[in-house]
């Protein structure tokens, strides 16, 4: 089971493959046509979207909510909402008033969006928790402190060290409370997400953040859950000091060389997660680019021990689902993907003679399904299942063929027909569905048009 595989990786044991954790935050909503605000504020839409992520991307682990503004909102920051991004903090309550918030302000389970989040966590645990590890994401103390104080916090690090330490202590208390709530709601991995860590020196990290993070990760250990430290930006110089705070895992973004970073995390026996490029590869690349990105990481690291494959950070809303599917496929079936990519890149594909059917003079409609491999790629499997069911219910009405990308001739066929994304469903040589799976009625209605 995927969850066990991820746990093994977090226990630093050898694994048969790297676990796959897609960070589908607002992107989860895209799968069902919900915008970012809807998916971050509506419990049913969030739940449905997460279930869709679980079904299509077959993650070994998945976050329930990727929004670093949850605690800040409760603590009085104003948020600016967006349709395709998580909200942004637009006001900092401590910017002009240098004080430490009262402990009475520490979020309770009833505050802000927590009732929604906790309910969805519980529902996810019930539905997929037996096979998928669930991540509870908490805003890291430094980023939370900066939400509260604004960029003044950077000056404070020189002008008033004591104040910064006290403010961070408060943020650690918030982190601990959130940890309690998320564990109670069934989360298996507690992740502290602290993008601002990349903006400070290792010296400042040691002065201000080593103790808070040790406290938080010790707390997770005490409570019997795994811990993870997410950082965004180029935190190369801080990887070692981050390891010294003893998280079970560090998750990094594309700015960091994962092969070099892993040499450091391995010294401390910390698992590393990352770091497929969000914009160039996941948002603007194609499926082959995404598969290659996975292979490059695994080849570069030379082992899947202590390695989790995930996007560099929260995936862009508009990330094409087929790219995410391709990543999952490459993680699950490294060897076949490698072979398929080699074939795809090989020069002699043009020499393979592929004869396309004469689509204009077929006896009956022809449904052709181009898949990565329907036995290992979930979305491909669902597409094939729908086709097979409709086929069996309407025997003799149409012909059905699957072409798997793992076979050389099929790659050549994809190229000849101009297939861009997998899985894709064609009827009589015309593209009908790509990545989106039709229901049985939709499919049969479309087939009937060609009778």
């Amino acid at each position, binding site marked *: 089971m995927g969850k066990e595989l991820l746990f093994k990786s977090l226990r630093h044991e050898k694994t048969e493959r790297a676990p796959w954790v897609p960070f589908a935050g607002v992107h989860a909503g895209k799968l069902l046509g919900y915008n970012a605000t809807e998916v971050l504020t509506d419990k049913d839409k969030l739940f449905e979207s997460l279930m869709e992520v679980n079904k299509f991307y077959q993650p070994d682990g998945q976050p329930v909510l990727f929004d670093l503004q949850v605690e800040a909102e409760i603590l009085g920051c104003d948020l600016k909402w967006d349709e395709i991004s998580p909200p942004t903090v637009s006001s900092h309550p401590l910017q002009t008033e240098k004080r430490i918030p009262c402990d009475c302000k520490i979020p309770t389970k009833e505050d802000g969006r927590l009732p929604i989040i906790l309910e969805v966590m519980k529902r996810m645990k019930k539905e997929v928790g037996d096979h998928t590890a669930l991540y509870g994401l908490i805003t890291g103390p430094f980023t939370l402190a900066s939400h509260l104080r604004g960029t003044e916090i950077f000056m404070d690090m020189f002008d008033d060290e004591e104040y910064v330490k006290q403010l961070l202590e408060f943020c650690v208390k918030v982190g601990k409370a959130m940890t309690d709530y998320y564990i109670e709601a069934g989360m298996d991995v507690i992740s502290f997400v602290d993008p601002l860590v990349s*903006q400070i020196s290792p010296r400042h990290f040691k002065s201000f953040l080593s103790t808070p993070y040790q406290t938080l990760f010790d707390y997770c250990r005490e409570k019997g859950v795994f811990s993870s430290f997410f950082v965004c930006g180029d935190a190369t*110089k801080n990887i070692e000091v981050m390891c010294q705070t003893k998280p079970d895992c560090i998750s990094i973004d594309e700015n960091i060389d994962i092969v070099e970073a892993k040499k450091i995390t391995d010294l401390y026996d910390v698992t590393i997660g990352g770091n497929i490029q969000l914009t160039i590869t996941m948002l603007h690349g194609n499926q082959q680019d995404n598969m290659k990105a996975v292979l490059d990481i695994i080849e570069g690291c030379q082992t899947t021990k202590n390695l989790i494959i995930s996007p560099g950070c929260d995936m862009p809303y508009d990330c094409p689902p087929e790219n995410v599917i391709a990543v999952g496929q490459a993680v699950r079936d490294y060897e076949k993907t490698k072979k398929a990519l080699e074939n795809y890149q090989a020069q002699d594909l043009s020499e393979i003679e592929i004869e396309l059917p004469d689509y204009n003079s077929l006896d009956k409609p022809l449904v052709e399904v181009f898949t990565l491999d329907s036995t290992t790629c979930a979305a491909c499997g669902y597409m094939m299942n729908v086709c097979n069911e409709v086929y069996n219910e309407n025997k003799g009405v149409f012909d059905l063929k699957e072409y798997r990308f793992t076979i050389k001739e099929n790659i050549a066929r994809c190229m000849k027909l101009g297939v861009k994304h997998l899985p894709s469903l064609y009827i009589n040589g015309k593209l009908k569905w790509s990545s989106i799976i039709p229901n049985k009625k939709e499919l049969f209605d479309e087939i009937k048009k060609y009778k």
Partner: protein
Amino acid sequence: MSILETIKECVINGKMKEIQEPITKAKEEGYSAKDILNEGLIAGMEVIGKEWEKGEVFVPEVLIAARALNKGLDLIEDDLVASGVEYKGTVVIGTVKGDLHDIGKNLVALMLKGAGFKVIDIGVDCKAETFIETALKEEADVIAMSSLLTTTMMYMQTVIDELKEKGLRDKFKVICGGAPVTDEFVKKVGGDFYTSDAVKAVDLLKQVL
């Protein structure tokens, strides 16, 4: 250590409160505002810039250095204006509409200021018309745009398209930066230059202006 060296050290170490004394002393010793600016303040910021490029200093160190530099600039501003020192160029800088991130944009603004450019910082969440109207009003040479989100970076194209529509595209150099932005992207949307960090932005503008 000469008095100008002391000023330089104050900038490097972000000593905002302490910078007043050596500047007053330098003036008494007969150094011109231009000497204080170039050999004290800008020289200090250049050291920080080089250290930043090598990854030896981080955001907090740059911010406090820039704060000390700004304090120094305030102290010699009247003398600079009186002596007619010219800026290396005028830059209108802001984070594009929909995006509230300002750390990177502020760093670029501070570094440019420290390198002798006139910088008009129009803040965050800036519309195309704000960029363009300010650039026209200030007779700017450069429009600099920042974006930290994949969702807002496309607005850079909106600003550039608006410049084209108004027949103003060639009037300004357009530089873009921010975490998701790449050289390829900037070329695609019709900008002139991409810079990956504040120091490179300064070097680039020194070359092209």
